[in-house]
């Protein structure tokens, strides 16, 4: 059979990129079926493909990757990411098999693994707490985010930054603090309260006027836009220096103010600075408030006449392993049955959630009523996306109108609707969103929503539209017997992460409604 090498290579490339059209795929299949020479070229290109992926992973591991400031990955999750990535393996074949992937040398490590390590390597501090913070740079950082060198700009609220050196710094907004390294920061403006344990001695905070070098202590540092900068020493001692003045040591209870180029002695006033204990108290009060606000909104959602299923995962576990459908008119079948999963902490310390980790973990439900429009909503904290398909909800049926809702390996939201075209198996029409659940968002609570109004599929993340696409109009949409966070298919497709709210509505919620829902529900 005649074929053009360039044509074949273009087809191969499109297949590798998953951008190939059905017609081109058929053409590729025809060429490969009829020509051994074509198959040889195909094999070569397959090896080039895996080789390029290896090369990219190695280059990244070697540190050539560019620094993205403040990649918001959660610290506790980062530390066990390497375990979670292949947790399914452990479940499937015990610890034995998991070890295989551990013992593989670094050059063949899957890229996502090296990406996680890389993120960790660039971090210099952790955002341990963030209470009522409004960021002026528009980057939404939440507690647990790993901080890389860069500037934190708070309009209001307060945060606790734990530097890798061990220094703990409470920053009160409005403030602008530049993180230089694990042992150094620069206070452009605002107030900080620093606790420096012995192992972090030498921790330095610069400012436009003067610099403070710590010798193991607690001190406050204030840089106002219209007032003179002040240093207050609460315990231990610090050294204060400026470009023009000789270094000066301040002891416990002492303070200085930099006025007209000279240091004036003042008394240290502890109450002028937000203490860590107070921040912790505010944090827990804030969490209580947020939880109360969410509960209120959540009741409204349960009461919506279009709500078919609403799980909040707040009930206690005994005696049955059941997830209660909070919707007022709930039929018994719509309560979920928990298989495998265990309960865990949700968006707030007192909020429940379900943990999906191993191959068997799932919630089974039956939502028998056919629908003409739908909203699928889930609050999830994704550990990793080790598979090409990571299911949020999968109908057992393959009838026309059956739904699959999932995250792809690249972190795209995807809705698939079954369509019977007379072939032996159903075709699944699908619309993807842009990638959203990418590694820097692993470990954070995200609100994922997909709506379908019988014409257009819309994907939302954290209340923002992230993708739309047209779909054929099935006579009705079917969920029926279905699985949350897993599927009945023998192919491994379960979600790796936690879920603390899940809802199905028989109408397409609007962008405004979803934005409001996110505002009321984000942690």
């Amino acid at each position, binding site marked *: 059979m005649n074929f053009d090498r*360039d044509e074949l*290579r*273009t087809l191969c*490339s*499109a*297949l590798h*990129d*998953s951008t190939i059209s059905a017609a081109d795929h058929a053409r590729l*299949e025809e060429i*490969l*079926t009829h020509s*051994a020479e074509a*198959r*040889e070229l*195909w*094999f*070569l*290109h*397959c*090896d*080039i493909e*895996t*080789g*390029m*992926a*290896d*090369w*990219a*992973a190695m*280059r*990244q591991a070697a540190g050539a990757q560019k620094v993205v400031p403040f990649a918001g990955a959660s610290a506790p999750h980062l530390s066990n990411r390497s375990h979670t990535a292949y947790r399914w*393996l452990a479940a499937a074949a015990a610890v*034995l*098999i998991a*070890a*295989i992937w551990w*013992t*593989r040398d670094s050059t*063949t490590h*899957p*890229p*996502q693994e090296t*990406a996680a390590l890389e993120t960790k390597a660039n971090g210099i501090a952790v955002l341990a707490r963030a209470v009522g913070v409004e960021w002026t740079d528009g980057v939404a950082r939440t507690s647990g985010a790993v901080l890389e060198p860069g500037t934190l700009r708070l309009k209001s609220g307060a945060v606790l930054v734990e530097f890798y050196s061990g220094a703990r710094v409470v920053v009160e907004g409005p403030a602008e603090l530049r993180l230089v390294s694990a042992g150094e920061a620069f206070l452009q403006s605002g107030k900080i309260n620093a606790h420096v344990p012995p192992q972090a001695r030498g921790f330095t905070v610069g400012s436009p006027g003067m610099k403070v070098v710590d010798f193991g202590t607690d001190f406050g540092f204030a840089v106002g836009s219209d007032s003179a900068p002040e240093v207050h020493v609460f315990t231990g001692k610090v050294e204060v220096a400026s470009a023009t003045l000789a270094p000066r040591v301040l002891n416990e209870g002492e303070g200085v103010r930099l006025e007209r180029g000279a240091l004036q002695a003042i008394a240290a006033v502890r109450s002028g600075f937000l203490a860590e204990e107070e921040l912790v108290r505010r944090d827990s009060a804030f969490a209580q408030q947020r939880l109360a606000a969410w509960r209120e909104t959540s009741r409204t959602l349960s009461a919506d006449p279009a709500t078919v299923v609403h799980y909040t995962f707040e009930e206690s576990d005994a005696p049955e392993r059941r997830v209660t459908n909070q919707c007022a008119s709930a039929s018994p079948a719509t309560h979920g049955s928990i298989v495998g999963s265990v309960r865990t902490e949700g968006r707030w310390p007192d909020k429940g959630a379900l943990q999906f980790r191993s191959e068997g973990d799932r919630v089974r439900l039956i939502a028998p009523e056919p629908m003409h429009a739908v909203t699928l909503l889930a609050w999830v904290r994704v550990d990793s996306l080790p*598979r*090409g398909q990571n299911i949020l909800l999968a109908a057992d049926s393959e009838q026309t109108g059956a739904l699959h809702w999932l995250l792809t390996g*690249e*972190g795209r939201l995807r809705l698939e609707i079954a369509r019977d075209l007379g072939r032996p*198996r*159903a*075709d*699944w*029409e699908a619309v993807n969103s*842009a990638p959203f659940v*990418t*590694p820097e968002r692993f470990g954070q609570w995200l609100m994922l929503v997909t709506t379908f109004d019988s014409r257009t599929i819309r994907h939302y993340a954290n209340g923002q539209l992230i993708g739309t696409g047209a779909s054929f109009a099935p006579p009705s949409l079917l969920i029926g017997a279905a699985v949350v966070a897993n599927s009945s*298919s*023998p*192919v*491994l*497709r379960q979600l790796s992460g936690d879920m603390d709210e899940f809802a199905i509505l028989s109408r397409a919620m609007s962008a405004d409604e979803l934005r409001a829902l996110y505002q009321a529900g984000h942690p």
Partner: protein
Amino acid sequence: MAQPEPNNRDESHEEFVRLLNSSHRQLLGYLVSLLGNRHDAEDVLQRTSITLWRKFATFERGTNFAAWASTVAFYEARNFQRMGARSRLVFSDALLEVLSTERTNDISHTDARHEALGHCMEKLDEAGRRLVEAAYLEGSDIGLLAEQLGRAKQTLYNKLNIIRRSLADCVTRRLAEEGAR
């Protein structure tokens, strides 16, 4: 299902891990040629490794592990296509059989191709390297790079196609030169 005796388990496991590691590249390359893309191939390889361990007792020591493993991988790939990737474009079973047979012989070239590719990658310019990273690193996105560069996504895919071609030509040339030496 035959499982190794408990007292032989550790030893057997070590050997299994060693064999699987040394064939990883070949098996992945084998699966890419059946499934068409790396992500699905990784998926199926992970499933395959579980089955391989379960069946490891039936593997005849001293014979070709990669060849034995690829027969298991073949069934996993076909199963994956039938069950997991219904919505995707897949090769017919007839073509899969042909590809599998020929690829099993071809796979011995994989390591040499990868080595040659390492040299060829060095000739790529920085823009090309960035593009390869955007396309091949987990969590990266070619759409994002297109946005940053102010180019259409398809332009970048076209560029990637050209890079793959020139790399394939470079690898072929290098291997021919080595063979001639």
